[in-house]
């Protein structure tokens, strides 16, 4: 068995920018990003396609060099160090297993270049294969394995080097839904058991919420928000994050001063008090999760008036679309027996905790 990793190191970006092509016409794939990933944690880079996640990851690996800024691993400045000389390994989306080498040769590959002798190399490679449950597959060629098995070989190959940082670029996107859940749990388990620093790229928010200690949400080459899964879900920093993580109704509203740090939010005829979160008086945005919407009898005071447009029964709850003066709201209701039919008039209020004011 592999020992817990004592070399796990932190990763720090200091104002890192990556420009592809010339300054005038090129693509700014990563724009002045600063971040800090603590040793021994699993941090996810999450964001829509093309937002710069892979580029960020490749700069940690040393496969791309930043145009500007400083990259540190542990206390060492590695900004100019090429991939070969960094103690970082990476699991590729395509797995990138060498097709002409057996599973064992693939896993031994990196060990060969790390100064281990033959028996140590074989021993470590076998331990790695055992860890991912492929001990009996050592002589097969990658093309003779299933997708999930190939994926595990790729993980083992990266793991056995006991790198300072382990990188994953959308490692599960080639697997089916069920396997995806299983493998991601295995990755998380190994990470925690060995105390690895892992940076994990995905565009799937559910995957990110499930495995991460922390999530860094990226959008348009910059960091949109950096926090724990709960932070992102319950206190999204802005409209983009609220929309991207989970589903949210985003509503225009008007705010005015209330008590210390609080604001009174006006939505048509409906008023409520919420933490201000540095929003100035005037027009603002309110984000409300579907499960924080409370549906009541039509005509209730201090509420929004609406009409049911659609009602879908999905087993554990109801999914409702409600038309109001502020636009259509998407709501869920646990009360699956409630007789909401299209055309029914209802009133809508929001739960006390849950709705948040968004910095636009």
């Amino acid at each position, binding site marked *: 068995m592999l020992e817990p990793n004592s*070399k796990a190191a932190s990763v720090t970006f200091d104002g890192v920018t990556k420009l592809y092509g010339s300054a005038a016409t090129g693509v700014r794939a990563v724009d002045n990003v600063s971040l800090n990933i603590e040793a021994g944690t699993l941090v996810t880079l999450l964001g829509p396609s093309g937002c710069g996640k892979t580029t960020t990851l490749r700069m940690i*690996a*040393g*496969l791309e*060099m930043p145009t500007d800024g400083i990259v540190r*691993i542990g206390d*060492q400045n*590695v900004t*100019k*160090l*090429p*991939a*070969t*000389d*960094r*103690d*970082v*390994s*990476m699991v*590729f*989306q*395509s797995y*990138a297993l*060498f*097709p*002409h080498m057996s599973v064992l040769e693939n896993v031994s*590959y*990196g060990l060969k*270049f*790390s100064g281990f002798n033959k028996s140590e190399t074989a021993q470590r490679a076998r331990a790695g294969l055992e860890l991912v449950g492929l001990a009996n597959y050592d002589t097969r*060629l*990658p*093309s*003779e394995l299933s997708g999930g098995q190939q994926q595990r070989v*790729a993980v083992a*190959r*990266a793991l056995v*080097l006991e790198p300072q940082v382990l*990188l994953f670029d959308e490692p599960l996107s080639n697997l089916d839904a069920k396997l995806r859940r299983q493998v991601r749990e295995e990755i998380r388990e190994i990470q925690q058991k060995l105390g690895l620093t892992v940076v994990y790229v995905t565009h799937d928010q559910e995957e990110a919420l499930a495995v991460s200690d922390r999530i860094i949400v990226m959008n348009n080459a910059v960091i949109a928000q950096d926090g724990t899964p709960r932070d992102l879900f319950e206190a999204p920093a802005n409209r983009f994050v609220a929309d991207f993580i989970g589903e949210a109704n985003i509503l225009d509203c008007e705010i005015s001063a209330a008590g210390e740090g609080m604001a009174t939010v006006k939505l048509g005829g409906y008023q409520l008090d919420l933490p201000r979160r540095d929003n100035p008086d005037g027009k603002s945005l309110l984000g409300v999760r579907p499960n924080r919407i409370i549906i009541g009898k039509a005509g209730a005071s201090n509420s929004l008036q609406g009409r049911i447009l659609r009602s879908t029964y999905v087993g554990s709850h109801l999914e409702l679309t409600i038309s109001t003066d502020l636009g259509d709201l998407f709501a869920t209701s646990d009360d699956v027996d409630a007789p909401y039919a299209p055309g029914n008039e209802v009133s809508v209020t929001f739960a006390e905790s849950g709705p948040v004011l968004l910095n636009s």
Partner: protein
Amino acid sequence: MVKTSHQQAFAHPTLLLWLIVGWAGFFLLPWYGVEDSIFTFTWMTEGYPTDDDVAPAFFHALGGRKIWLLPLVAFLIGPLFALRRDKSDPLHAKILIICGALGFGWLIAQGFSIGIRGWNFQWMASLFGPLEDRQFGMGTGAMLTASAFLFMLTQGIAGRGAVNGDIFVVGAIGFVVTIVAAFVFYPILNMLASAFVTQEKTYSVTVFFEKFTDRRLWGLGCFEGGRCGAAWNSLILAILVGFLTTALGLAFALVVTRTGFRFKKVLRALTVLPIITPPFVIGLAIILLFGLSGNVTRFVADFLDISATRWVYGMPGVLIAQILAFTPIAFLVLIGVVEGVSPSMEEAAQTLRADKWQTFKTVTLPLMRPGLANAFLLGFIESMADFGNPLVLGGNFDVLSTEIFFAIVGAQYDQGRAAVLAIVLLGFTLAAFWAQRFWLGKKSYTTMTGKGDSGVHPLLPNSLAWPVFVVAGIWTLFTITIYVMIVYGSFVELWGVRNTLTFKHYVTAFSMKLTDGGIHWTGSAWDSFWTTLQIAAIAAPLTAAVGLVTAYLLTRQNFAGKNAFEFGTMLSFAIPGTVIGVSYILAFNVPPIEITGTGIILVVSFIFRNMPVGVRAGIASMSQLDKSLDESSLTLGANSWQTFLNVILPLLKPAILAALVYSFVRAMTAISAVIFLVSAEYNMATSYIIGRVENNDYGLAIAYCTTLIVVMLLAVALLQLLVGRTNIGRRLNQSRTNV
């Protein structure tokens, strides 16, 4: 732990190595070229180290004579100061760049300035006064020192962070750029310049125009019963050959891939045969069939009771011979393209309600456009450059390539005219290249999705299949006839005159005697035969290596000036062999690179003539290897050289084999450049055969050709065995068959 310099002294092993090489070149080895090969070590006994012919540079300079070599010492010592500095120290890179660049520059500058008659340029003589001393061509010492300076420079550039500071990659780029500059650009530019040289050795534009506007070049006399100029002849011939070979090649490619044709294997084998046939052999066979005493001519003449004519000599004969010789090339280009069109595109078209014919017309054919353009271009260039067939069959039909030859070797000996003709030829091929680019435009024709494509190609529509069958059938019969003629002809005593069978020709060419001293190679062909084998065996691996490294740089690395780099490495492809031949003898019969008359010039010409094919083969298969394979190797701690060795090369075996076979075969069958470069000592098979043909000794020529064909078949089989295969499992194998 990040791997950084543990032991300072050995922090730069590559640098240390090149420094030692540089010193050895300067202090130990003969600086100028020696009579025999450097490895015979006879130079050791010829007054080494002080005699002028074999002295190392250091001893030349020590004697106080060639003092212009002395500054090099400084540039060889300078890098010692870089050796102890860390790679991240800016001074490390600075020292290497300065020493490398100045050393290399100085070496080149002195080489070109001082030649066999002292100063090479008038203004230098008037500036520095006359020079008593002189220099010969660079030898081993000079070459090693130059390489050392070059790689110092590239290490310095890498040290400054170019290409992620990768020493191997920057070094490889520097190496390829340097050799392409020396053996492609320099000779061509030198030749361009010599088109402007008058008999008094001064430059003049009028000389050029005088020769350029010659009637023998551009005359249109053939419309009035006379002769047309060589330029028009070449152009019209090349266009016809380009179109016809492309059409035929496409027909065969379609038969093989998209019909239920049962004898595909036969057809494939037949189309490969002409590739291992020296091009003019077809010309010879055509003479046997259609010449004055040819079988067909005789038969028709007897049958119709008319007198036999020499109708085949001229345009018709050359055209037939070239189409037969070059169709297989078009086929090989097109089969890859036809197979490469993703079946799912065609299947998609069919599900969108296109019938077979519409699918073919609207999807398949347009997607093959780049292949068609390439095939045409190849046919065009091959025809322009072909030397053997026009020589054998041309009669009064002058073409550029033969005219160039006669301008150089004939009684006229007119270098300027040869250069002008070569420029016209080069102009045509470059124009064709440009036209191809223009026609293809910026559209993307890539259909490789990278995902396993599992569909099947639809069959051809019937209206197309039949004509294609008929054409392929006729061609197949014709080709078989031609080859039967060749083999048969080699056993006939004197074709058309004495038709008795005999081994005479083989005996004359390849007899040997066993004596107690060993085997005596008494046949007249052995000399050129062994030379050819030797040169081809040396050139093939070098060509493949240079080609694949270049392909690796082009597909896998990003660096400033990559487009110019690609253009430079592909340029020699657009240059007809005849032009290469002329430019090489003009450039390399004087110092600093003086290799005319040696085997080296033949090897070098083959490398640069055939390198583009190696590059293309390499690019084709490397672009099918996902880049993440290299990257994962890099993140696993291998450097780029180890990655190249452990990951890329094993996966490239098909491309390596293709490049090796191609360059070997081409080196054995080439004639157009070779005819200028052979010497008494290094005579090649093809030029020997052409010599026999010119003496009307057809029997011997054909016997020799038959032998060559057999030898090449064996060699190809042997190469296949040597290179072997890389096992990558069944699934991947299936999708990679068409390399």
